[in-house]
């Protein structure tokens, strides 16, 4: 998918260009629906999450440029966060995950920082696999299945604080591996 093309469409959506919005939908909805389905695992819920995702895209496209994310990262992260919010919605006391570009202040150094992160991204899978198996599984569980620290502590049968320390170390190892 051509990055500039998607950026151009998001910029036009920011100006409330309906034709551009429909074109953007046609270009990216299959990828976003795949992500919603992966997280929610149920078609009806995934359809609802995707509709919510595109409403957020329509309402917040004008905030996209400020956050320095690549366009597909922005779109996929909205779909992922919306799906996980829906997955967790039944749990008591759930606080919604914030969506990028709606909550992030315009970040000065971020475009370069994000560009570096994007170039590192191809290494993610290899680096996740290089972590201790449990740590890699915990990071995947948090990102793709919306598992909380409490869920993870239960799955790995460790105290909550140990889980947090583990996962934090895993994240630092991950960042180091990806930047090499």
């Amino acid at each position, binding site marked *: 998918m051509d990055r500039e093309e998607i950026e151009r469409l998001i910029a036009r959506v920011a*100006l409330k260009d309906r034709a551009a919005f429909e074109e953007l939908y046609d270009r990216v909805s299959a990828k976003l629906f795949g992500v919603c389905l992966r997280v929610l695992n149920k078609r009806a819920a995934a359809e609802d999450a*995707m509709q919510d995702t595109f409403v957020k895209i329509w309402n917040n496209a*004008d905030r996209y440029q400020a956050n320095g994310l*690549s366009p597909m990262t922005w779109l996929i992260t909205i779909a*992922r966060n919306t799906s996980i919010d829906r997955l967790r919605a039944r749990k008591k006391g759930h606080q919604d995950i914030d969506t990028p570009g709606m909550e992030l202040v315009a970040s000065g150094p971020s475009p370069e920082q*994000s560009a570096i992160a994007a170039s590192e991204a*191809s290494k993610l899978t290899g680096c996740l696999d290089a972590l201790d198996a449990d740590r890699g599984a915990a990071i995947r569980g948090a990102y793709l299945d919306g598992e909380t620290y409490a869920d993870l502590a239960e799955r790995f049968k460790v105290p909550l604080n140990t889980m947090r320390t583990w996962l934090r170390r895993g*994240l630092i190892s991950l960042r180091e591996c990806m930047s090499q």
Partner: protein
Amino acid sequence: MTDLPPPTPEEESEFLAAEYALGLSEGENLTEARDRARRDSLFAGAVAAWQERLVAMTDAIAPVAPPARVRKALIKSLFPNIRVPFLQRLWVWQGLTFASLAMLAVLAMPMLRPDAPTIAGPIYGTQLTGTIDDLQVYAVLDPSRGGIAVTRTAGAPPSGRVLELWALLPDAAPVSLGLVPDDATHLKLPPEIAAQIDNLTLAISDEPPGGAPEGAPTGEIRAVGTVEEI
């Protein structure tokens, strides 16, 4: 595990950003992360970098074509048909009550039609708002006479800048409708724009004094509104 030194403030900040991007922040951590993401550009950059790293986990997810009904339902919810009964489409105005826009239309009428006490053709209007600041502008359009009454009810241009009104039509470059120097400004509505009023969106950008030099917006888009029949 206990013999490790406690994290430095930088490390703690990096953990917070990573956990926030993963959706693991809870309670006070979530409040702090959310607050810093809104105010602290370095922290926001760290969150964005983590989002960029983590999104690669979706690379292996195959696209799945969604059913056509999702697209239909989405379009219907975002762009309700203008032909639906009058009262049902009032929600389109969101923050704006119909009464206040109708009142503006009445107030704008002497500006638009000084010599005509009766309304000749349909009147259109919109409320322009943005997310940069509290700028709020109402525009009332009279296509049959070719006039636009622009009323600024809140906000102001950044210092040293002026506000410029643009007509946006699908698949066309923005067309300048003129500067909006005062709280109430009367501008001309060109016939070629009036002819496409059903697809018209208005936007306001900030520009250097005298307006955009090349005839295309150069500053930030500060407010946008979709034109509808009143």
